[in-house]
């Protein structure tokens, strides 16, 4: 595996250094401990939004720090959740006096480290609410697992909660809206190849040329089942059907369709998936009212994609449309 790196041990730090320089108008990168906060600090009176997780999913989460989305983000080592000593100052940096919402992907490590940090922040007098994102329908029976994982739907939660906070919602409002997104967003992903964590040096799992993993998470872990590779239309159906079924979409509903690349799949292929997913939704009588196509929640250089569907209502649609200005998402 060839990578554009210097010392693999410094992969995250070197990348963040460049990120800080490229987006100095939006973000400030803090070191020891590492976290990324908006330039100018917390907005007085606005609910602060913080998220974080292992690195390797760029532009998630640091690329979403800015106006109308996150106030701070905490990157961990590659595919490893950040530690409480980084999360705690990020919670404080985002606190403009109106409380802080932590948006946490439902992975055991992320949940445990955020729990510890939130406990510490509360002990220091901060008011913090937490929303767990668990949009991954690949995890079928959450009674027998650590529960559904947070994957690409996290972008929808961060965008929409960010807009709600920007428009002056209080901590309860912003938390309710974030939870409302979580309740109405579902995703499913496929990997065509594994990815290679820089300091490990070998692929995170073995995947033969003629096989693909259906139902992958985003931390380089293998999926629920392995099947033979198939044309894009068939693969798209394997992803879209469980998502739409789980949402129990009915005729006449409006949705946001988000086709996300895992890092190594070109935009042209993502649009192939998007086209098929859209036709499948339309066959169900569902209107695709908003769309997003691109690599936003990635697994390093993994080839593959995920399909995310968010059931829309007037409130969510307006918040999705609200202005956003971050390194990776802006309109």
């Amino acid at each position, binding site marked *: 595996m060839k990578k554009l790196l210097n010392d693999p041990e410094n992969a995250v730090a070197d990348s963040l250094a460049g990120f800080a320089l490229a987006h100095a108008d939006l973000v400030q990168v803090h070191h020891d401990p590492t976290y990324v906060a908006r330039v100018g600090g917390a907005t007085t009176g606005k609910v602060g939004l913080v998220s974080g997780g292992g690195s390797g999913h760029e532009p998630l989460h640091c690329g979403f720090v800015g106006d109308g989305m996150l106030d701070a983000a905490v990157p961990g080592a590659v595919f*490893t959740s950040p530690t409480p000593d980084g999360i705690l100052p990020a919670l404080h940096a985002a606190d403009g006096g109106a409380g802080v919402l932590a948006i946490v992907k439902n992975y055991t490590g992320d949940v445990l480290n955020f729990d510890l940090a939130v406990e510490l922040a509360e002990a220091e007098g901060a008011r913090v609410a937490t929303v767990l994102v668990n949009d991954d329908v690949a995890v079928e029976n959450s009674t027998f697992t650590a529960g559904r994982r947070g994957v690409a739907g996290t972008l929808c939660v961060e965008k929409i909660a960010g807009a709600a906070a920007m428009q002056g919602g209080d901590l309860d409002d912003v938390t309710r809206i974030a939870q409302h997104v979580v309740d109405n967003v579902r995703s499913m992903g496929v990997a065509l190849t594994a990815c290679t964590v820089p300091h490990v040096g070998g692929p995170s799992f073995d995947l033969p040329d003629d096989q693909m993993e259906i139902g992958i998470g985003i931390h380089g872990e293998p999926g629920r089942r392995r099947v033979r590779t198939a044309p894009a239309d068939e693969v798209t159906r394997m992803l879209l059907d469980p998502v739409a079924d789980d949402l129990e979409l009915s005729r006449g509903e409006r949705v946001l369709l988000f086709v996300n690349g895992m890092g190594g799949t070109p935009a042209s292929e993502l649009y192939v998936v998007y086209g098929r997913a859209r036709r499948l939704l339309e066959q169900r009588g569902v209107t695709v009212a908003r769309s997003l196509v691109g690599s936003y929640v990635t697994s390093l250089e993994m080839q593959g994609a995920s399909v995310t569907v968010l059931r829309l209502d007037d409130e969510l649609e307006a918040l999705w449309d609200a202005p956003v200005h971050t390194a990776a998402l802006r309109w």
Partner: protein
Amino acid sequence: MTLDADWAERWIRRTADAVADRRDELTALDREIGDGDHGENLVRGFRAVVAKLDARRSEADGSVGSPRLVGDVLKLTATTLMSTVGGASGPLYGTAFLRAAKVTGHEAIDTRTIVAMLESALDGITARGKAEPGEKTMVDAWTPAVEAAERAAGEGDEADALRAAAAAADAGATATIPLVATKGRASYLGERSAGHEDPGARSTALLLAAAVSALDEETV
């Protein structure tokens, strides 16, 4: 053999050596059923603890007579692991050492305290991670270790209790191989998680083996 702060320090240093020696094995186990970072994370965490122990030792040079408590070493280990390991194992091992530190605030610890230390560690892991025995997690190494230490403590000394705990943790880790994971990262694999040893259970066995090896004052 006195189980004092020097023993606790040797325990942590030998754990650092053990996870570094077995880094590839832990990574390979985690690669099968997790995300392949367990070895790296523990090596990074215990290296950081050793660096702090070294720094503290050089600061302490020249000062005489201040009591050194087992719990102090374990607390330093806890806070350092929490802030350097990440993943699920950072908060879990961090909480384990923090709880263990609370019952070992002594200059030397006896058999009863060894058992209490292991029990507290397990309670902390269970409280934080909400896993139960049989779910293919580090709890499957800690639980038999605590039970074995309790049994051994009835008849033997603190070294016997530690040896029994380490042997039981090793067997407990091996016994995770056929289990289907229902907690933690491996649970996403469902049935496919069977046939692989749980990396957290294996690292627990290494940790407790290091506690036994630390009984020997000679450098290994």
